[in-house]
């Protein structure tokens, strides 16, 4: 799964920044479950279109909808650029 587009969505009042990512494939249940290795996964399979949210210890949050080819990532103010690079590199390799 590779990133095809990156868009800055907004700067938040708490200093964090939200980015939108588009991928060359959609989020499947399997791919969502793989996030468990990265942090705390909240998964809502009963919503009309299942929603997932991953909260990492370093404050990064990844949110998306199963079946979509995009997601939102919130980078906290602290080490924003480092965290962003880490996330983006993870999807270059896979």
């Amino acid at each position, binding site marked *: 799964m590779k990133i095809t587009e990156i868009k800055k969505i907004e700067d938040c*009042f*708490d200093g964090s920044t939200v980015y939108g990512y588009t991928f060359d494939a959609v989020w499947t249940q399997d791919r969502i479950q793989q996030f468990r290795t990265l942090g705390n996964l909240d998964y809502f399979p*009963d*919503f*009309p*279109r299942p*929603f997932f949210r991953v909260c990492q210890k370093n404050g990064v949050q990844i949110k998306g*909808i199963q079946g979509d080819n995009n997601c939102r990532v919130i980078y906290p103010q602290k080490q924003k650029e480092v965290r962003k690079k880490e996330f983006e590199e993870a999807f270059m390799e896979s």
Partner: protein
Amino acid sequence: MTIYLNNAASGWPRAEGVCEAMTLTLQTPPFHPGRVAGGCADVLTICRRGIAELVDAPDPTRIVLTTNATHALNLAFWGVKLNDHAHVITTVTEHNSVLRPLHHVRERFPGLRLTILPTNATGALDEEQFDQALEREPTLVVINHASNVTGRVNEVEQLFQKAKKAGAMTLLDASQSLGSIPISVKKIQADLIAFTGHKGLHGPAGTGALYVNPSLELEQVFVGGTGVRSDLMLHPANMPMRLEAGTPNMPSFAGLAAALRWYQKEGAAHAQKATELANRFREALMNIPKVKVFDGTAKVCRTPVISIQIAGWAVEEIGYVLAESFGIICRTGLHCAPLIHQAIGSAPEGTVRFSFSGFNTELEMETALDAVRRLAA
């Protein structure tokens, strides 16, 4: 299926006849705006008459057509000749289209005193502080008729009566109230009222108006072409031309004329249905343990707007999930009204706002309610 619950931002769908009127205007050779064509009133006159009728204003020439409420408010702020000695009283319930122009005016006139009245936690304005502020020679009192965050309607009749007694000019921001609750210039002692066409009237964006009381003549801010009296060096001084310059947005005003026609026939029932849906929605939300309804307890007059937070969810996230998973369009954040959130306890992230119209259905309301319940489970 999309459920649209963001009518406080812009009323959708547009009223019956709006799209057709706009398309027809774009497809027809433009006639001279502002003129009476073929014995029948032109679109601009129809809009002025329609708005005047809606707000009980006897003279339609006192209705100035603008591109939106923000434009109308700016015309008012720059037109009332504020200066370094002025004292302006306003409230924390205001939208940035009131707050920002006022801060800009104060940058121009640093001596201007600006009193911003607080509200209590339920969103009620502090009348005691209002009375105290009125003792300090107020020039202008600006009040939001209805909060675009809580829907609460401010008791402007009473407040403006006091303001007039204290010798102030009065300006009402009716952006959220026009089309939702009755407005009468005969009852509200407003010198100026700013309206928008794209919310409660379900007209097109790019339309608004400013009511100017006959006792007041505003300074001209925009001057230029008017299509008539081209021989004059200065912009004509007669109303409404005095405050209207340049080619108007004819397709949108044709749409607004259609919206006003629709509203005349169906507006009252439409507004009532929106209020009923919103009230039932609010009451049901109050019974969901993890949901906090802002200003939910107060038994007051409101527009069909409900603001909430859900424990365990960021407001931005709720908006995202409702839109992407449930197909429900609402709005999240501060709603361009940055000061009210501190007062009602929704700072710093703001609220999730649901705003109904009479085009919404019972099923849509129930579906939205179910979605909130599932998030709050």
